[in-house]
């Protein structure tokens, strides 16, 4: 039995609608995160197993080099190297999924949820940083395995790396802001 003013009612209804939207979208995002993680791993495995050698060399920045066919062991090793930044990204997606699941459960301002969001930010940054290094290792590995007489080391830093780092930084700041919000929420719980 709680008294409410007429002004409280629309505000409360708005909040309920907002929470409902957040829960629905979070459920969709949680499903998208796990699906994307599985698809990315499968696509990467398929890429290294089925892509023609010339295409692999071209995409590793070794387009003009004469090539011999890559054997299975080299493809498997290249897959492992390529999976390093992707593994960081997948860890980030799984952290984001835990965060979304917590939102679905209504657990918005808890330290654990904020920890998942921060893990997502760190994983995105780690993936962005690892990607050029993995690319460099791949170019060396592919050139050593297929190109006769030449060894190449290609190191690429593109706008996607910088954007991913900005994205990660933004989420890290949002996580810190949420920590402040959690402190306010804890304080508010001490009001009766």
């Amino acid at each position, binding site marked *: *039995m*709680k*008294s409410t003013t007429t002004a409280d009612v629309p505000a409360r209804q708005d909040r309920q609608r907002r929470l409902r939207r957040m829960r629905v979208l979070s459920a969709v995002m949680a499903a998208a995160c796990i699906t994307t993680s599985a698809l990315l791993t499968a696509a990467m495995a398929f890429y290294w197993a089925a892509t023609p050698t010339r295409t692999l060399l071209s995409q590793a920045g070794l387009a003009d080099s004469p090539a011999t066919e890559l054997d299975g062991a080299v493809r498997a090793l290249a897959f492992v190297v390529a999976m390093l930044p992707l593994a960081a990204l997948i860890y980030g997606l799984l952290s984001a999924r835990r965060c979304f699941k917590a939102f679905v459960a209504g657990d918005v301002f808890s330290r654990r949820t904020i920890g998942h969001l921060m893990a997502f930010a760190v994983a995105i940054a780690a993936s962005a940083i690892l990607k050029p290094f993995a690319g460099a290792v791949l170019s060396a590995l592919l050139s050593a395995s297929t190109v006769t007489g030449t060894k190449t080391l290609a190191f690429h830093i593109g706008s996607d790396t910088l954007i991913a780092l900005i994205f990660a930084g933004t989420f890290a700041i949002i996580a810190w802001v949420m920590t402040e919000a959690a402190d306010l929420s804890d304080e508010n719980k*001490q*009001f009766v």
Partner: protein
Amino acid sequence: MPIRVRLAVMLAERHVKSKDLAEYVGITEANLSLLKQGKVKGVRFETLERICRFLECQPGDLLRYEDGPRTETDGD
């Protein structure tokens, strides 16, 4: 904290049970108990209004300022 909550005294004077007041106000008995002990950071006007209506008293009857040493939470 120099603010003393006199809710326990008011309940005793009016022979009102905590359970009945908590139900009327719309808070848990646990929170009402914390309020009686002064172990809360604040009281919402909404809660205060309901308590005053139920006990037919003024907010000043429930809260007293007593000069004394400040606790670390006073400055918050």
